[in-house]
């Protein structure tokens, strides 16, 4: 039995599907040569096509088409060699043409699927219904003037991919895992930067509830949820609201709602009388989009290694656990960093250092893997110093903290601070003799059979040597001395 909501009258199951709008990474817009860069002065990245001046004709951007194909391939989806652009007609102040060029009946990408990972280690497949290309709208600013809205068309005409999932999602956690995985795949492919704060990735959440075993009931759409955490909260809040409606004898009405993160509830959007009468028809300015199978194959051949394949390879090639592999491939930059450290070294040690000390240092300093104070090469050289027994693992942690702070080379730190491991048996023997002499009572207990005291002696000897004693030699000399 999966996730259920326990109502007053029995258990309810959640049925959820996501529609995700992902802004395509490209230099110029879907149908014009205006730039797409974020944050430019208003209306400075607008062509006459974007502003819908009379007589201007759209010409599709080859790279935007390629990005949609790459994304389709990354979602294990069918690529439709014949697709078509349609006009979706509605009036809004940030839509100059009075229609959005979209793909309705014939999307460029058909059915696919992605595998999501859940906290308990289970995986599930979530179906992709379709992916289509469309234009983004402009941006309205409502807070600049008491009676006017200001319109910036810089975003108008930027390419979006709308990615629609099947209603396969059954819990808030699965909704979060789906969006996390989709975002990860898009970022690996380099087709969308996945920045939810800047609005490059936006989700509409479709939710209904039902009794286990039942068919579908009426769904509601929660629009424009802009973080993975809010998606999970919105699914839960909307499902609970619907359970309450059904259980109190009411009927859920199909409607569009908004999620209010501050109050953790959904509320209806002011309904437009004629919503959803878009009167789609094929755009007469554009011919059908016909793709060469050879081009699609070329794009398939040049796809980067995706997270699932990389995690599988990390387990196979480096002997990492499934969990470690998954953590390391979450971001492509992290996976690359790990591989640079692991290459030619002990991969498990490299994984532990990246996931342990490095992640902790990044958290503490508010840096990301891209801006890490310690480079992969420097961390690699530190591991080399452990491997050739120049320093012990314990001293290495101290050297690492120094590297985080100063950015200095590990070997230089070891030399400057005199942290080189002592492998001189004479020095170790002297320290051992001193410790045993100072702890005659414990030596007697040890010899009487209290063998766990051995660890205590090791600690004392290390302390006496400032942590620099070679651990294996210390053990060996101690064993001999305690005979």
């Amino acid at each position, binding site marked *: 039995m999966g996730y259920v909501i326990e109502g007053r009258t029995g258990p309810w199951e959640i049925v959820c599907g996501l529609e995700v709008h992902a802004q395509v990474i*490209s*230099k*110029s817009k879907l149908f*014009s*040569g*205006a*730039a797409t860069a974020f944050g430019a*002065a*208003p*209306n*400075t*990245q*607008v*062509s*006459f096509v974007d*502003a819908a001046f009379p007589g201007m004709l759209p*010409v*599709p*951007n*080859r*790279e*935007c*088409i390629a990005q949609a194909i790459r994304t389709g391939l990354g979602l294990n989806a069918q690529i439709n060699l014949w697709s*078509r652009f349609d006009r979706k*007609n509605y*009036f*809004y*102040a940030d839509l100059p043409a009075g229609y959005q060029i979209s793909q309705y009946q014939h999307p460029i990408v058909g059915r696919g699927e992605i595998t999501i990972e859940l906290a308990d280690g289970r995986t599930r497949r979530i179906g992709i219904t379709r992916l289509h290309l469309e234009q983004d709208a402009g941006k*309205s*600013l*409502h807070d*600049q*003037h*008491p*009676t*006017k*809205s*200001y*319109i*910036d*068309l810089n975003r108008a005409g930027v390419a979006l991919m709308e990615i629609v999932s099947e209603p396969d999602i059954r819990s808030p956690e699965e909704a979060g895992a789906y969006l996390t995985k989709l975002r990860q795949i898009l970022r690996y492919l380099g087709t969308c930067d996945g920045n939810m704060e800047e609005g490059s990735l936006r989700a509409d959440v479709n939710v209904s509830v039902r009794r286990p075993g039942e068919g579908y009931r009426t769904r509601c759409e929660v629009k424009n949820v802009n973080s993975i955490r809010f998606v999970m909260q919105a699914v839960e809040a909307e499902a609970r609201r619907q359970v309450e409606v059904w259980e109190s004898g009411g009927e859920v009405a199909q409607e569009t709602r908004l999620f209010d993160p501050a109050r953790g509830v959904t509320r209806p*959007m*002011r309904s437009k*009388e*004629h919503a959803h*009468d878009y*009167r789609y028809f*094929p755009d007469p300015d*554009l*011919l*059908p*989009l*016909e793709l060469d199978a050879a081009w699609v194959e070329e794009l398939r051949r040049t796809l980067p290694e995706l997270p699932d394949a990389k995690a599988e390879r990390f387990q196979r090639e480096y002997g990492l656990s499934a969990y470690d592999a998954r953590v390391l491939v979450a971001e492509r930059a992290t996976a690359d960093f790990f591989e640079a450290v692991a290459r030619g070294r002990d991969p498990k040690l490299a994984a532990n250092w990246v996931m342990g000390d490095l992640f902790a240092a990044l958290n503490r300093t508010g840096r990301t893997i891209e801006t890490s104070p310690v480079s992969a090469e420097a961390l690699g050289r530190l591991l080399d110093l452990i491997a050739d027994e120049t320093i012990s693992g314990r001293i290495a942690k101290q050297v690492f903290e120094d590297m985080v702070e100063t950015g200095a080379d590990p070997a230089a730190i070891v030399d400057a601070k005199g942290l080189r491991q002592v492998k001189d048996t004479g020095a170790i023997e002297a320290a051992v003799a001193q410790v045993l002499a100072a702890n005659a009572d414990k030596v007697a207990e040890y010899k009487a059979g209290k063998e766990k005291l051995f660890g205590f002696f090791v600690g004392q000897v290390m302390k006496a040597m400032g942590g620099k004693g070679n651990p294996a030699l210390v053990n060996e000399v101690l064993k001999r001395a305690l005979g």
Partner: protein
Amino acid sequence: MSLDAATVRRIADLARIAVTDQEVARLQGELNGILAWIEQLNEVATEGVEPLTGAVRMRLRLREDMVTEGDQHEAILANAPDRADNAMGSFFAVPKVVE
């Protein structure tokens, strides 16, 4: 197929065109005339004929991904009925629209 007055009003509303009652009656007659004219196409036998997707035998041409236009906000805003300029730059200004 025949349009009733309510459908004519709905079409006008979707097109953001205000129509009076007299105009509705006139438009209903005109639109029904156009529909009847178009419906003559139903008499043509189209069994087994591929739908026409364009009037020309060409493939859709694609553009390379290059920035070729921009920094022309004065030209873009030239015909705006109303505009606003502030520290951020220049905007179209429209009657307030909030969801």
